[in-house]
């Protein structure tokens, strides 16, 4: 079975803006094994 998450999160206004600490960023890779409770991103 499969679960798909779709969600909004802060991003830099445009690619020219420097990434700021509030921008959402995944901290996973494709193929990673992940478990309930582990961070997908911040």
């Amino acid at each position, binding site marked *: *079975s*499969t*679960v*798909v*998450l*779709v*969600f*909004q*999160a*802060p*991003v*830099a*206004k445009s690619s020219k803006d420097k990434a700021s600490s*509030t921008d*959402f960023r*995944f901290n*996973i*890779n*494709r*193929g*990673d*094994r*992940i*478990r*309930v*409770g*582990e*961070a*997908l*991103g*911040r």
Partner: protein
Amino acid sequence: SSSSNGNTFLLPGATVATILMFGALHARRLYDDRKVEEAKERGIEPGFQPDAKASFLNILPLRTISRIWGSLMSVELPVQMRPYVYKAWARAFHSNLEEVALPLEEYPSMRDFFSRGLREGCRPIDNDPQCLISPVDGIVVRFGELKEPGAMIEQVKGFSYSVSTLLGLNSFLPMVSGKDVVQKNGEVEDSHKDQIKKSWWRVSLSSPKIQDPIPASPMKGLFYCVLYLSPGDYHRVHSPVDWNVLVRRHFSGRLFPVNERATKTIRNLYTENERIVLEGQWQQGYLALAAIGATNIGSIELYIEPELRTNRPSKKFLQFEPPEERIYEREGVGFMVKKGEEVAAFNMG
């Protein structure tokens, strides 16, 4: 043929032909899989390539097969047999029996064992308020930011599906950018004005001609993440964040397998399969969770709606049926679910 001590036995021709045919098909499949592995090692991602098996699956009554499978798996096992059966399953599908909440003897059937809970403390929750946690155990298939025009997620290289088809055509999926609601002259399309007024996500529109008193807000992006649960995984779904679940959509659909091979060979896999979509709002805006069934896992159970049943017998052409929708009480507030709480569970049949 005849054995050494002179007596003979015969295999009917048809049996020999069937054995040879299956042998040839299996050899062909091993050969294809090896080619795919070699391409992957060379960093070439195999593209979308329908095959005979996918066409064959298309004509099979997969929902019925799934329900029969579920009935078989619901048969109560003798207590003495249960540990052997569940250990064999765990060995075959790499399940971790250390984490199982109850003694194995206490799961009456395979189906009860499949939707087992875990011992307390086995899944610590990352409590950083800015963090989004994985709702399930599984493998990260794909993730990223949804870009304009329109929001598509790649099922496999060469084939994508639209997020609004996955979540429901009347989903309140926020537009990725204001552009596709703004006509050429910079005015907002009437049909969308209401949605924008009501939507929790304010569109920062660049055109000065917009008269709406909508103040500019920090930019938000739309992200997605696809997670695959293999048969041996823990099959309960937890909440990724603190959020308000506002609406539930139940799509009765096909029950194709959703393994890696199926994603490469079956078109519209996720948007045609039976699924439940929960939509709502978290602190950063919109959030939706789609739980998608498969042939062996046709049941999706919602804790906030225990009476909801999926994979029910139906004579209609399900692909063309609109989803069953329910807006949770109080409109605009819905169900408040805490991060890490159990929200749903997959089950056999």
